[in-house]
């Protein structure tokens, strides 16, 4: 029997990016907030300290910061006719665990979606014809526009101390920045990181071809920075260990480095770690959530935490799972195409390439992801899709940093994987390879969704979430096109050898590809097309707010975190300015 605790103003489930933002904003509004986190706390001064943080085996191979599959995982299959089997250890994607969540170990690519991404269906139908979007493609307009979200994008830049160069300041296009981005109210808080040498060669070749190269916006401070919460961030050290690892300089933005230092001083905030939330307590008749049930992993005791406001801000899978398990909303039914919780699961369609330059010294272990150079000429609204046979697109990047010795050795295809020749080739090429990536969009499809698994259970005895996903013909065509564009640039760079690495036909849960998962609790204009409204408020429980990329109607050709953070700030603002004064539905259906 659960012990019932004293009611609190707001409870936040999951203390990653969105949870950290909501806890900070709601305490600033005067609410008493409890943050529930399944994993451990992370304090950079001791947990992410030198020299131990520079450990490729521990962080990049053994996945120290990732979620514990032994207590909770998902099952996976490519098609509805197959039996889904559990992901026994994370690989294709790597959700994090503990305070900071996946934000601790991300690579810091900090993007905004294009204005036309937010009106995707309308944009495509206007430009390419009313019947241009096939019935199987489940895309929809966002219920919020770029212009409405811009102030929150701007604010999130200033939470994170993002380093970059604007390409569109209030409508004025600026060469050297991203001229395809929507208008920005202000320049990035920090100057861009220096280009990697590979990025510089890429930039020159791309410019010659008429493209528009610019430094990737990087969610780390290129110089010491104090953010809008008064938290001090250090300067990026260009260590080359960024992705899958946390930052010893507190330069890379995460809720741990940009928000928690302020929240730890906040008397209205209480953090409870190692607590596993099992269910939201739903009063269907009142259309409210009365609180949450959780098990304290340190005592084994079950608690009910009543709350006036519940913020569900776990990873995409856990958000969707929690609603399904709590009986909130109508589960998506693949057979009939009805129901909404679990609908529009979207991955990110990344496909890489590599090129080899025996005469260039590239110091591959040196530098940050922020040294990467991008062209955005082949994202959704950047180019004409007439006659191409697909919709969508993505940015193309010459990557930087992050080639430590276990994982970062690159040799031309066909090189033996072991033995003397392997060794000679490994040494020959280590300093001389450049890597590229294409950050492709994924548009919803009726066959790609999440529901509850009929067989496998988590450590609390709940059915696991089941993911049914495969790449669609549209997304494969988009990805091949992006690779053909980057191939042109690579050729112009004059490598001794290069290779394109197209995606396999079937999505596989090994090896690592991208942690950018989206959908399942999508936002929309009415309860008939979405799980949450434009303020991320549940249509089925007005005091429940669902945060994160699970609310994206589809995945666009950019990393999701910039939009995820902006949405959390936008939602928090509405809660503060409207909901607290008059609790109830913020959008009337």
């Amino acid at each position, binding site marked *: 029997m659960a012990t019932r605790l004293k009611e609190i103003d707001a409870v936040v489930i999951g203390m990653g990016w969105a949870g950290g933002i909501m806890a900070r904003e709601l305490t600033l509004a005067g609410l008493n907030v409890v943050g529930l986190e399944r994993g451990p706390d992370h304090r950079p001064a001791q947990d992410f300290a030198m020299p131990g943080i*520079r450990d*490729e085996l521990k962080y990049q191979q053994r996945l120290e910061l990732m979620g514990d599959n032994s207590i909770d995982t998902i099952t996976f299959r490519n098609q509805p006719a197959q039996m889904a089997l*559990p992901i*026994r*250890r994370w690989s294709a994607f790597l959700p994090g665990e503990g305070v900071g969540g996946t934000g601790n170990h991300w690579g810091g690519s900090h993007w905004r979606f294009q204005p036309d991404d937010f009106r995707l269906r309308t944009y495509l139908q206007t430009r390419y014809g009313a019947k241009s979007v096939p019935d199987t493609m489940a895309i929809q307009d966002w219920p919020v526009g770029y212009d409405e979200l811009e102030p929150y994008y701007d604010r999130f830049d200033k939470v994170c101390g993002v380093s970059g160069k604007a390409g569109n300041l209030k409508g004025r296009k600026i060469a050297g920045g991203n001229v395809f981005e929507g208008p920005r109210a202000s320049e990035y808080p920090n100057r861009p990181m220096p280009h990697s040498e590979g990025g*510089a060669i890429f930039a020159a070749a791309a410019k010659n071809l008429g493209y528009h190269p610019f430094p990737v916006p990087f969610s780390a401070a290129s110089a010491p920075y104090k953010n809008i919460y008064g938290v001090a961030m250090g300067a990026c050290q260009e260590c080359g260990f960024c992705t899958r690892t946390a930052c010893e300089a507190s330069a890379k933005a995460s809720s741990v480095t940009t928000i928690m230092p302020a929240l730890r001083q906040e008397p209205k905030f209480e953090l409870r770690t190692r607590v596993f939330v099992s269910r939201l307590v739903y009063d269907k008749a009142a259309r409210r959530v009365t609180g949450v049930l959780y098990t304290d992993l340190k005592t084994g005791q079950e608690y009910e935490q009543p709350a006036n406001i519940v913020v569900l801000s776990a990873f995409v899978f856990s958000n969707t799972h929690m609603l399904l398990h709590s009986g909130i909303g109508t589960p998506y039914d693949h057979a009939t195409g009805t129901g909404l919780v679990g609908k529009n699961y979207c991955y990110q369609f990344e496909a890489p390439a590599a090129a080899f330059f025996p005469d260039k010294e590239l*110091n591959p272990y040196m530098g940050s992801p922020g040294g990467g150079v991008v062209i955005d000429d082949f994202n959704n609204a950047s180019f004409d899709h007439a006659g191409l046979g697909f919709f969508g697109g993505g940015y193309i990047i010459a990557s930087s940093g992050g080639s430590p010795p276990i994982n970062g050795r690159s040799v031309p295809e066909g090189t033996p*994987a*072991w033995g003397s020749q392997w060794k000679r080739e490994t040494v020959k090429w280590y300093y001389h390879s450049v890597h590229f990536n294409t950050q492709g969009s994924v548009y919803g499809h009726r066959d790609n969704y999440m529901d509850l698994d009929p067989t496998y259970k988590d450590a609390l005895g709940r059915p696991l979430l089941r993911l049914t996903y495969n790449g669609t013909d549209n997304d494969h065509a988009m990805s091949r096109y992006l690779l053909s564009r980057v191939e042109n640039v690579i050729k112009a760079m004059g490598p001794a050898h290069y290779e394109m690495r197209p995606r396999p036909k079937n999505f*596989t849960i090994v090896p690592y590809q991208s942690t950018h998962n989206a959908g399942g609790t999508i936002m929309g204009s009415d309860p008939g097309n979405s799980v949450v409204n434009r303020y991320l408020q549940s249509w089925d429980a007005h005091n429940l707010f669902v945060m994160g990329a699970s609310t994206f109607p589809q995945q666009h050709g950019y990393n999701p975190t910039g939009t995820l953070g902006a949405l959390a700030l936008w939602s928090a603002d509405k809660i503060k300015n409207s909901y607290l004064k008059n609790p109830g539905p913020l959008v009337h259906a």
Partner: protein
Amino acid sequence: MADDTIPRRDFLTGAGAAGAGAAALTAGVPAAKAAESANAPAETWLVLTADEVAFFSAIADTMIPADALSPSGSECGVPVFIDRQLASAWGAGAKMYRAGPFHPGLPEQGYQLPLTPRDYFAAGVEATNAWTRKTYGKSFDRLSPDQRAEALTAMEAGKAAFENFDSRAFFQRLLAITMEGFFSDPIYGGNRGKASWRMLGFPGLPATYAGKIEEYRGKRYVAEPQSIADFS
């Protein structure tokens, strides 16, 4: 099979000796170096059996032969690394979902066995040795360098017909853990003397390159490699 009856403990005085012997067979390591290894104190193994030490040493020396670029895999401590990894929480299956029911599944669904890494490698060593005994009449570690290379090539291509074990999948796991041992920080028992980091030109720690990107643009950065242990 007669040679397999020789007691392992007599045959092995530790991975260093086994590795040195194997390396001398393959690439003619300088005699002084081999003697130095032979005189090194015997390793104390946490979980590996003598058969397994011999197996992983032979694998390491075949995948990473001694040559002008580096000492052999076993001289670099790869078997010690594997022993410690398999004895670690990771080796015991920490953070791994191990509930049934179990099905082989499709390749797209990834690893589906209940075996922990420690159990998986134990089964793989047995399966490999059973297959080499059938094919060559000897356990893997007793094969000649050419036979070892041939056996690994067959496993890599999925042409080694193991009984009830996936030889290609096992090869990939063997390759991964051997390379981890060769390239990881020496604090884990492999990469002795930072041999692989010297070979690559990887400087290790502290990896604070702010300001060095421009300074070393187009120029090779050279530094004596340093381990976590050098800062501890």
